[in-house]
């Protein structure tokens, strides 16, 4: 792997740590699968691209975050106030967002950002070296990490963690679990949309399909992270997500150095996630079979 490819992989790992953080909130902390992610990522990218094209890249990030939070809120409302099952709620929002995202980009499926000022050109001007992307992304990921760390220590953060653990207990403490879910989904999708907003400016284009498979990528990062750092606490959990996301990108970069076509990547990611999640169950079944055989041979 060349140095440039290596650097690129680390950068991608960092920028895709953010959706993995978001997925960590929904899948791990709340224990509720949220499929809004694919849509809110593109929403963040679309909003960011439009504002960047208009000359406001920083506002683009802020608007992306806000739009993502709104998308998460809608999914949470569908779930809590309208009684729609979590998976379907996410699918509904994601599907609706497809149209919204097209509308945001002025009816186009793709929006190039050539020669526009972006947060990355701003960073390049500030740092003046080849690591300007890495430096900016490191700053943002660290900032979000610290904000998450602080937030999950607050009473609201604690209530959200408890909501994923035992909703009855949270309600018994006179806390409205509908509200804790809404806040959690908003934060989760805001973080995912921030990633989309950054990716659009980094790759200088937003595309209606750029969110496809995002959840699987996020889950793969979580699983790889689990394997490296046993995440007993929120802090270790978040650290493991960063490690997992970066390692995932390095693995992909390694695979790409072979002559495999990039179109195979999604299939490989899906297989990795499926195998990783299936392994404990398979192991148990295998051990049970062995035990049964042994018993059979005894008589």
């Amino acid at each position, binding site marked *: 792997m060349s140095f440039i490819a290596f650097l690129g992989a680390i950068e991608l790992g960092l920028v895709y740590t953010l959706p993995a953080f978001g997925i960590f909130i929904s899948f791990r902390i709340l224990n509720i699968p949220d499929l809004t992610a694919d849509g809110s990522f593109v929403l963040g990218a679309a909003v960011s691209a439009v504002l960047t094209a208009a000359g406001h890249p920083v506002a683009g990030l802020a608007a992306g975050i806000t739009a993502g939070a709104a998308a998460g809120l809608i999914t949470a409302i569908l779930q809590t106030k309208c009684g729609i099952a979590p998976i379907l709620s996410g699918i509904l929002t994601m599907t609706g967002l497809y149209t919204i995202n097209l509308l945001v980009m002025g009816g186009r499926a793709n929006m190039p950002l050539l020669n526009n000022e972006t947060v990355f050109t701003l960073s390049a001007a500030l740092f003046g070296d080849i690591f300007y992307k890495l430096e900016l992304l490191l700053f943002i990921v660290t900032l979000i990490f610290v904000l998450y760390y602080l937030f999950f220590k607050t*009473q609201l953060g604690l209530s959200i963690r*408890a909501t994923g653990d035992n909703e009855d207990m*949270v*309600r018994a403490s*006179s806390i409205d679990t509908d509200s804790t879910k809404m806040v959690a989904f908003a934060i989760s999708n805001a973080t995912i949309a921030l990633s989309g907003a950054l990716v659009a400016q980094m790759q200088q284009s937003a595309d209606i399909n750029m969110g496809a498979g995002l959840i699987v990528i996020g889950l793969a990062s979580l699983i790889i992270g689990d394997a490296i750092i046993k995440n007993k606490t929120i802090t270790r959990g978040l650290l493991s997500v960063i490690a997992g996301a970066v390692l995932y990108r390095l693995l992909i970069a390694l695979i790409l150095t072979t002559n495999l076509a990039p179109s195979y990547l999604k299939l490989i990611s899906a297989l990795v996630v499926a195998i990783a999640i299936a392994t404990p169950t398979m192991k148990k079944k295998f051990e049970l079979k062995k035990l049964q055989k042994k018993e059979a041979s005894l008589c």
Partner: protein
Amino acid sequence: MLTMKHINKTFYLNSPDRRTILKNFSLSLKEGEFISVIGSNGAGKSTLFNLIAGSILPDSGKITLDNKDITFLSEHKRAVWIGRIFQDPSKGTAPNLTVEENLAIAYMRSKKSHLLKGITKKDKAFLRERISCLGMGLENRMNTKIGLLSGGQRQAVTLTMATLVKPKLLLLDEHTAALDPVTAEKITELTQSIVSSEHITTMMITHNLTTAIKTGSRLLMMDEGKIAVDIKGEEHSKLTVSNLLERFSQNTKKNLNSDRMLLQYD
């Protein structure tokens, strides 16, 4: 303080499987009363608690707490005044949170406004002190995930959580039934000492006739969604198992010794 008037509750109301559990049920509690509730399986005891706590809503009737109509108030809003413990020790606590974090969440009932504040040093000291009152050494395990504690320890923490901020009403639904006899005895003692020192109005469902008679100041015996026996005051202090059974047979024309009652006494 708590009144229930003409409560009706039917499950599966508009289906052929409709089951009427409570029919024109009325009950009134006085401040500071400790009521033992006893009755066969399916008599409607837990349904009664669910209605009081707001986990389910009545089809008709009215529930008030300190003269405030709470009939249709949401569960989490009532929880400010109503503490509740279930039979299953895992129901009252969040297993992946530490003892301290669980207590901190229960403590939030007292101060709603500081959502973005963390647990302060002062809070920590207070929670630690309260948990040390249990005399189980749990104050040295404040940072242990609660899922790692035994059922009895968890039930003790749940008891502290439910009474950390003094509730107007404490509902105990067979909260010692899943524990071994020695632990159950210990939790019963703790319950009594907390309830009496804090003067908490309490309703306790139990399967044990002796416990029911020994504990509290009033005894309710439920049968098929109705109050079959209600004993308080002078009469309560002289109550024995045999005259309770007699009262029950008189009121319901049923024999309590039939094995579907599934009651124990020792």
